[in-house]
């Protein structure tokens, strides 16, 4: 504890604060971007799984397999696979891009399931009614399903996004300059672990907690309307 008080002024110097701010921004960007792309891709996957044509059956099976696997393999292992995959094929990529791709894959798998359960919340009768009116799948989604399902999907995805901020901490392992990485680098520069990781923990908390509250508010708000 003594070291914390002693190092306090030196720790919160201008460059260090800027370093932390950059890291915080990268953490936000990484989680926001992967969840936004994940929402778009997740929507495509959930829609594809609704198709009934035989020609698309292999694609559907592949998508089911991939989403199931990505939800059951630890994020760290997925990150290593993507990271070493790119380096083995000698594709030069910034660590941020590699982490973004790995995290997007994981987010897509989870969000596809969220969108799918949103689709399933629409009663069978409405699907049947749309089919009776000769709606195509795209029309059914556009005019019947999405206008109702988004109220369930959007708050659940935003709560997932808040959870996912914490998973981006793993990106520090491949050298992405985000909060956890910065916390580790402060230790390497001789700062007290209590001070550096304490600060990092606090920043994560200040980021995650208000967003979690906002997500819960959104969920309650949309559920009642």
């Amino acid at each position, binding site marked *: *504890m003594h*070291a914390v008080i002693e190092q306090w002024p030196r720790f919160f110097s201008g460059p260090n604060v800027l370093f932390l701010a950059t890291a915080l921004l990268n953490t936000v960007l990484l989680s926001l971007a992967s969840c936004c792309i994940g929402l778009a891709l997740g929507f495509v996957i959930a829609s594809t799984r609704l198709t009934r044509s035989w020609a698309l059956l292999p694609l559907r099976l592949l998508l089911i397999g991939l989403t199931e*696997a990505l939800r*059951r*393999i*630890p*994020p*760290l*292992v*997925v990150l*290593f*696979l993507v990271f*070493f*995959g790119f*380096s*083995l*094929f*000698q594709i030069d990529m910034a660590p941020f891009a590699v982490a973004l791709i790995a995290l997007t894959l994981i987010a897509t798998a989870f969000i596809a399931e969220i969108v799918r359960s949103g689709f399933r919340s629409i009663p069978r009768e409405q699907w049947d009614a749309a089919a009776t009116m000769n709606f195509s799948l795209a029309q059914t989604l556009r005019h019947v399903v999405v206008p109702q399902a988004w109220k369930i999907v959007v708050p659940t995805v935003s709560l997932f996004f808040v959870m996912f*901020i*914490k*998973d*981006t*901490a*793993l990106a*520090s*392992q491949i050298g992405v300059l985000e*909060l*956890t990485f910065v*916390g*580790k680098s402060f*230790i390497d520069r001789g700062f*007290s*672990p*209590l001070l550096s*990781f*304490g600060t*990092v*923990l606090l920043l*994560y*908390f200040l980021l*995650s*907690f208000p967003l*979690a509250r906002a997500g819960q508010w959104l969920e309650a708000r949309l559920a009642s309307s």
Partner: protein
Amino acid sequence: MHYALHYGQVTPYLPYLLGGALVSLWISVLAFAGGLVIGLLGAFGRIYGGPLLSRLIYGYYIFFTNTPQLVQIFFLFYGLADFGLLLTPFEAVWLGLTLNAGAYLIEIQKAGFLSTRLSELEAAETLGMSRWQQLRFVIVPHIARVLYPPLSNQFIIVIMGSSMGAIFGLEELTGRAVNINGQTFRALEVFSLAGVIYLGVTMLATVGLALAGRLLLRIPLRIA
């Protein structure tokens, strides 16, 4: 762009990797057990403790569920050394997984305990059951049935979290995959194999727990 997958160089390490899976499972079981105890005490504290105790426990829950598990373990591993408490990687990862799982399990178990309906207890009383009989035949079976599915989910989450042990030099499944990668440089093969083993372990755990729930608690099977 030419890279041929050679699983041949990696297969001799398969027993070593499977041994790592056992380490992963072992630390997950220990952490889940610890988390259950924290969760149980925490849930009782939240329900029966005064406003102060309840607030404190809620603070613990809010803090641990809003910060990354990885940073929590970093904090324990490096931070506790400042207090002269040197943790081995296994201890640090176990403690981190336990404290994190414990936080989630507090609210899960609290919700489970509060799900007992008054009408059920009144029915039990009408049947002339003693306090002990009510507990044995009504309250505990009900709570067990409500709690079982979210608890098994949490166990799977703990298994996935245990892979962070690799970062602290713990030789569990991911850690051993990292070791093999260092020797063979067959990263894709090693990590895809590790991924498949994780898939197998978590699937087996899900199916096994669902079957156990069906047999012991008569919870309807509902996989996927």
